[in-house]
């Protein structure tokens, strides 16, 4: 669970801290352009580092500095609690005069307050561990060290943190691009979930019992669904097919031919199964209510909130009144920006004076910190 997430000088996020500590589910609301999705982009940078992208230029560009302010470092700090252990990761980028791309200015990973490694520019200091000696080495300052530093085992805090970060689910699905075809397995889907087939295969391969969770949820939302098959369609390739049946007979439908909303049900089923199979997960879902019928939205949101009550953390954004109503003041954060030249401000809804109905206040555009 995230205890602290701090971003500075990245797009509209300046001296920005996301107050989600201790909350199993959180809703971000605010006008278009207020910075909700940018929070997910910031998290995604850390996720991509953990997934192996270490060239700084492939993570952030000079245009990502807030208002082009290149003389101030861009900074990301995350503090998470995993199995009662506190992990703190810091990375700062800078863009010195004459450089063509950003470089690492500072990087640090600490566990329980003790550094695993720290770094300034190219110089990395690896702390002494029970199994290894203290070490100093240099890394190209255009490369992030986290993916490079070798973990010693699967119980190594470095491995545990990196795996948690890599498995974060940052979701902005585009159902029209989801086909259900796959050539491999993954537990690390991309944000558009175009690798849904590989994710499905990955979860079921990793924890076969997860299929029961997927099946249970999908049969609630699509009572005529019988099962999901993932037949081989070529050398190393598979394609998901959903079977529906009723008293009138049965029907096989390729996943790619499901409606956009039904594909979102599928994604929700995998999120629930993933958090069950390898919790704790962080799931950031940007507007999960997109593509859903109004009668479905509340149940969809409650299913996700409920699943993360027992572990992990669910962060959502929404403009949908049904989704907004299924969160409460204590777990709703309001993001606000005066204009494009000013940074995002974030406040808990419970600290704001909302005159009357919240949804009406949002419609009127009256919700300002």
């Amino acid at each position, binding site marked *: 669970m995230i205890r602290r997430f701090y971003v500075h000088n990245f797009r509209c996020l300046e001296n920005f801290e996301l107050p989600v500590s201790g909350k199993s589910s959180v809703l971000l609301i605010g006008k278009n352009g207020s910075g909700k999705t940018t929070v997910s982009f910031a998290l995604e940078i850390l996720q991509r580092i953990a997934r192996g992208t270490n060239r700084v230029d492939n993570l952030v560009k000079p245009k990502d500095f807030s208002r082009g302010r290149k003389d101030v470092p861009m900074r990301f700090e995350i503090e998470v609690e995993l199995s009662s252990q506190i992990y703190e990761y810091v990375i700062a980028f800078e863009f010195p005069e004459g450089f063509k791309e950003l470089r690492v200015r500072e990087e640090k990973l600490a566990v329980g307050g003790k550094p695993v490694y720290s770094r300034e520019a190219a110089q990395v200091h690896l702390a002494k561990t029970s199994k290894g000696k203290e070490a100093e080495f240099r890394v190209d300052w255009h490369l992030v060290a986290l993916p490079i530093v070798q973990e010693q085992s699967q119980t190594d805090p470095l491995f545990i943190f990196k795996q948690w970060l890599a498995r974060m689910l940052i979701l902005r699905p585009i159902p029209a691009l989801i086909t259900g075809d796959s050539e491999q397995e993954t537990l690390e889907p991309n944000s558009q979930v175009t690798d849904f087939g590989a994710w499905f295969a990955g979860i079921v391969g990793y924890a076969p019992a997860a299929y029961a969770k997927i099946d249970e949820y999908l049969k609630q*939302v699509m009572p005529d669904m019988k099962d999901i098959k993932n037949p081989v369609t070529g050398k190393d390739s598979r394609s998901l097919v959903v079977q529906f049946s009723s008293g009138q007979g049965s029907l096989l439908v390729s996943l790619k031919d499901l409606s956009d909303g039904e594909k979102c049900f599928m994604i929700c089923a995998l999120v629930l199964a993933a958090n069950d199979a390898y919790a704790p997960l962080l799931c950031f879902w940007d507007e999960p209510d997109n593509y859903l019928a109004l009668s479905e939205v*509340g*149940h969809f949101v409650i299913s996700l909130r*409920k699943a993360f009550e027992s572990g992990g953390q669910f962060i959502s954004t929404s403009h949908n009144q049904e989704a907004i109503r299924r969160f409460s003041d204590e777990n709703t954060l309001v993001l606000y920006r005066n204009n494009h030249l000013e940074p995002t401000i974030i406040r808990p809804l419970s600290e704001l004076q909302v005159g009357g109905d919240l949804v009406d206040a949002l419609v009127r555009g009256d919700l300002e910190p």
Partner: protein
Amino acid sequence: MSVNSHQPHIFVLPEDRANSEIANGFLLNGEVSTHRIQVLGEAGGWHKVLTHFKSQHVSQMDRFPKRFMILLIDFDGRGDRMAEAKGFIPDHLSSRVFVLGAWTEPEDLKRANLGSFETIGRALAKDCREDTYTTWSHDLLRHNSGEIERLRQHVRPILFP
């Protein structure tokens, strides 16, 4: 999934956001069959709950005989509120409509250290699930006992199968 109107289900009509948040907490209880209950939009006042119920929901309850409704209102310390609310419920629907709420207002439940609205909702659901009165017996909630008994008889099997 959305509720199946042809199967037993419950609609909750809350007076305001505070009551809606209590309902959220209730839904978050792990044992509640959330696909059988739908929390509707906030009516904007206890009287509006009743008038909205009468104008919008009575005919739909006639149409869907497996529908139950919970009207979630504040009692504002008024001993006559329950009778007034019941006056809006047609006799033939009285067994399927329930009136619940804080004796004064939900904010007083918070002030009484029962926790956030969601926490209160979770606790009330736990009571319903476990057939206990730990939270329902609080001074600000015990006036609901008659309705709770009816709910346990008719609604509990739907929400906690």
